[in-house]
């Protein structure tokens, strides 16, 4: 009978499949890994290429020596300063605009939630190059009122980070029971400012942190708006530098990339901490877990 002979045969089949999958896995990961590692290694090699084929770390030594760097490449150091300033300003503006609004809408104006979501996700469907066309006249006014400083880019950048920041914060708020927390605080006599600042905000700390990290990473890599609105930031400076000193521009590119890598690595760490904390708190009260015990879609159960 086929049924009796099946189990050993099937176990062998499964072992064979597991072996085949392992080979497939390492071939795919190996080949694509090479494709992805090559440009990064090439950047390192390119920036350490000295005269006569010898290793030379001059470029990197210059890059970490800030006073000498700003003397040799004033545009680059200005770009770096501007980009970090922009990252800070954009993160602050994003948090100030978005966090209270999203909390407020959840608590008091639930009917506006769809609108807010739509508006926040809208920049995803508008390419930056299109946004810049529309922003040009707006920025004529910004320049008129606030001057032509590159830091004014922060307004446009806040628009760019809206979708990512909104998703992060919205996910954080969905994980807690905002309404109950707010009602509890209100019944103890807290004002709305206290509710938002001292009750809800500490509960969505990690979501706020990931929104901030994403904003910083995005701002440090932004080129389109800065370049076409005639302002200078890190990426614009790198592009400019590429025309005169290729080695230095590649070195700064690699450094920026490593910085972004570290930022996003920290971000994944924040996410992991959040997940672990939620899991721990989930243990005693299974009923409030965010993962439904029954399949999410009724079609599957049917």
């Amino acid at each position: 009978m086929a049924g009796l002979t099946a189990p050993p045969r099937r176990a062998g089949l499964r072992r064979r499949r597991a072996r085949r999958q392992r080979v497939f896995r390492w071939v795919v990961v190996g080949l694509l890994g090479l494709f992805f590692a090559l440009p990064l290694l090439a950047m390192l090699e390119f920036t350490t290429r000295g005269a006569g084929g010898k290793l030379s770390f001059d470029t990197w030594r210059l890059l970490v020596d800030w006073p000498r760097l700003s003397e040799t490449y004033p545009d680059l150091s200005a770009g770096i300063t501007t980009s970090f300033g922009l990252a800070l300003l954009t993160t602050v503006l994003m948090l100030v605009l978005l966090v209270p609004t999203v909390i407020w809408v959840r608590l008091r104006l639930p009917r506006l939630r769809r609108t807010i979501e739509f508006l926040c996700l809208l920049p995803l469907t508008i390419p930056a190059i299109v946004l810049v066309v529309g922003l040009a006249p707006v920025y004529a006014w910004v320049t008129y009122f606030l001057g032509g400083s590159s830091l004014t880019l922060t307004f446009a950048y806040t628009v760019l980070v809206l979708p990512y920041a909104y998703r992060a914060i919205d996910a954080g708020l969905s994980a807690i029971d905002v309404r109950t927390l707010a009602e509890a605080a209100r019944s103890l006599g807290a004002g709305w400012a206290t509710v938002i600042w001292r009750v809800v905000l500490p509960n969505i700390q990690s979501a706020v942190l990931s929104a901030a990290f994403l904003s910083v990473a995005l701002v440090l890599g932004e080129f389109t708006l800065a370049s076409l609105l005639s302002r200078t930031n890190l990426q614009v400076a790198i592009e400019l530098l590429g025309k005169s000193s290729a080695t230095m521009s590649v070195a700064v590119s690699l450094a920026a990339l490593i910085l972004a890598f570290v930022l996003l690595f920290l971000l994944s760490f924040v996410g992991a901490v959040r997940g672990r904390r939620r899991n721990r708190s989930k243990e005693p009260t299974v009923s409030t877990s965010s993962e439904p015990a029954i399949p999410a879609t009724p079609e599957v159960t049917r």
Partner: protein
Amino acid sequence: MSTVQQRSDPAAPAPGVRARGRRSLRRGLDLFGVVPFFAFVAVFLAIPTLVVAIGAFAGDDNRPTLDNLAALTDGYIVDAFVRSIVLSAATALLGAVLGALLAYALVTAKPQGLLRRAVTAAAGVLAQFGGVTLAFAFIATVGLSGFVTVFLREHLGADIYAGGVWLFELPGLTLVYTYFQIPLMVIVFLPALDGIRPQWREATESLGGSTWQYWRRVAVPLLAPAFLGSTLLLFANAFSAYATAAALVSQGNPIVPLQIRGTITSEVVLGRANLGKAMALGMIVVVAIVMWLYALLQRRTSRWLG
């Protein structure tokens, strides 16, 4: 005294009316909380969008006209749109196929294993890795004095540029775009693959199905909407990209984003002041259609693999 008088006044609004008035007043006050957000979005998102949408239909004298849209059918603009679409489609397909393979390789690994975690983290970074830095990375790799170019020339005697320098043209853009398309595919396609349950394979086996039949009849039909949807997302991603091309392409404006740059930075041809806006509107239309299809497919995907 007058207040007392007023309260006993029969003409005063009934309690219900007053309560309703207070409620609407409170709702009005509630709305104040979202004013800063809406004001900001209006100025920096709604106005720019309207500037593009209205400007596309306005002539140099701000009178409504269809000239700008008609100009979109000019040979060089049509060519730019075609090249943009071909480039985006090619890199989306390439990225989707290779990214899906990589994602599948990850799914067969241990879910909490080091391999999967490392590759997902790297994909998260590399998908964001675009623009100027990516262009320079490839100049350092396969540029004229790049690592690979030099290595091949000195050790194998091969010249990758025997047929002309292709890095700064469309073939180069295809290669460079693929570099950020593959990781993006991994990120968006992995959840769908995770939704495939081992039980379905076991069910196929217990019904006597072979591996081929499992893929042909179960896995592929289930994954097809997710795969198509992800490919569309990749298409939109490549179609909107500007910085990489701007840093890499040195001559001419082969694709639409670079054409738009041309209208912003160079002298405006008389009667064509709003041509850039018309092209921008064209881009919005393409991206909107693609994203709409993506949303449709996404809904279909979540039926089984949510």
